């Protein structure tokens, strides 16, 4: 096996291992399948040639993807449009249909995610993807010892906004 084909095999394995998680993270972050797909793809392309070990590559990919999401004005506008397109109105609950209820829940989740602080959102979504406290701390630039407290508060804030008990943003 040549060095080149070995690197190709490594990229293939990394892609298979990380892409589903990165896509899910970005889909939750953007609320949009196309944006998630585009940013995930661009993140992997930027990884090419860097020669990072697999364990570092995963965190690197999520960091780059988050920065791409943050820096993309077009994506941000699309996200805001999606987040505000279906505001939750308790008085206008749809008929008890499972699919409709699911869509309603998804819209409320996106709305709540859009209203909590960016750091909270990022920490919650990274924790959901299995990142450890020290990795989360590196990406959001907080002390590792504070991650537990910040995650507990972020969870409470998200649920309060979701339940309509707290207005953020």
């Amino acid at each position, binding site marked *: 096996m040549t060095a080149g084909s070995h690197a190709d095999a490594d990229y293939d394995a990394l892609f298979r291992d990380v892409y589903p998680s990165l*896509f899910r993270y970005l889909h939750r972050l953007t609320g949009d399948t196309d944006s998630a797909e585009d940013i995930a*793809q661009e993140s*992997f392309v930027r990884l090419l040639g860097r020669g990072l070990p697999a364990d570092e590559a995963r965190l690197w990919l999520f960091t780059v993807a988050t920065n791409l999401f943050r820096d993309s004005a077009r994506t941000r506008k699309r996200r805001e449009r999606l987040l505000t397109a279906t505001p939750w109105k308790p008085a206008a609950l749809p008929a008890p249909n499972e699919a409709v209820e699911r869509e309603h829940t998804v819209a409320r989740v996106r709305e709540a995610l859009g209203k909590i602080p960016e750091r909270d959102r990022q920490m919650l979504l990274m924790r959901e993807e299995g990142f*450890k406290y020290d990795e989360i701390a590196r990406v959001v630039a907080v002390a590792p010892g*504070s991650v*537990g407290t910040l995650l507990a508060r972020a969870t409470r804030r998200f649920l309060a906004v979701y339940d309509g008990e707290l207005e953020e943003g």
Partner: protein
Amino acid sequence: MTHLDEGALQELLDGEMPAGRSGPAEAHLAGCSACAAQLSELRAGGERMSALLGAGDVAAPMLRAQAAFHRRRRGAHPLARTGRGLSRAAAVMIAIGGAAVAAAAFPGSPVRQWVRETLLTEQEPAAPAPAPVVQAPAPPPEAAPTGVSILPDDGQVRVVVSGAGPELRVRARLSPSPQAAVRATGAAAGTARFRTAPGRIEVLNAGAGQVEVDLPAGAESAFLEVNGRVYAAKEGQALRALTPAVGGTADQPVFRAGP
């Protein structure tokens, strides 16, 4: 011991509390209803949030994304840039060579003299250059073991390993400790994530490496479940393997976490 703060409780839930602190913290929890209630509240909030976030998940477009990545990789392959660079270098070398040959054709030319003295004179072949000493890359530092432990809930305890790859090894044994404990070692220490619920430890995202599971011998019932199948269960005062072990001993079987 003073009450556990919210951050400490969250660390316990996420399996992030260092081993030296988790023992005293869990001992405090066992006797403090206020902290236990707060832990339950945090756990319920986390589980509700996870369920809500997952409500809108869609399947990742793996095939399309892989094909696109292959195309982008071919486009960004450094060979393409090297090829263009070589073409330019070859053109320059051909031009220089051509000029040298032309100059050497003239009698008395300094180029002709240099060619005669250096290229047409037999010389002792130079000794081959010694092979460069290649330093073996240092092995990556192995992550410190990580883990979590809980007390059984109403005498019941279950350890659930989910999404484990076939390269993961899971060692199970009965322990005299009143707590169920899970420890990820090797590569799994860097990837595994833990979640706890009453009488339940979940191990997520463990890649390669090993997960060591201690089930309390004093529990009424204790199970080890891997990828949806029960691999081992406490039966009387012994551990019974319910799937063939790939190593270990009868009382400490090691399983392969295959699908």
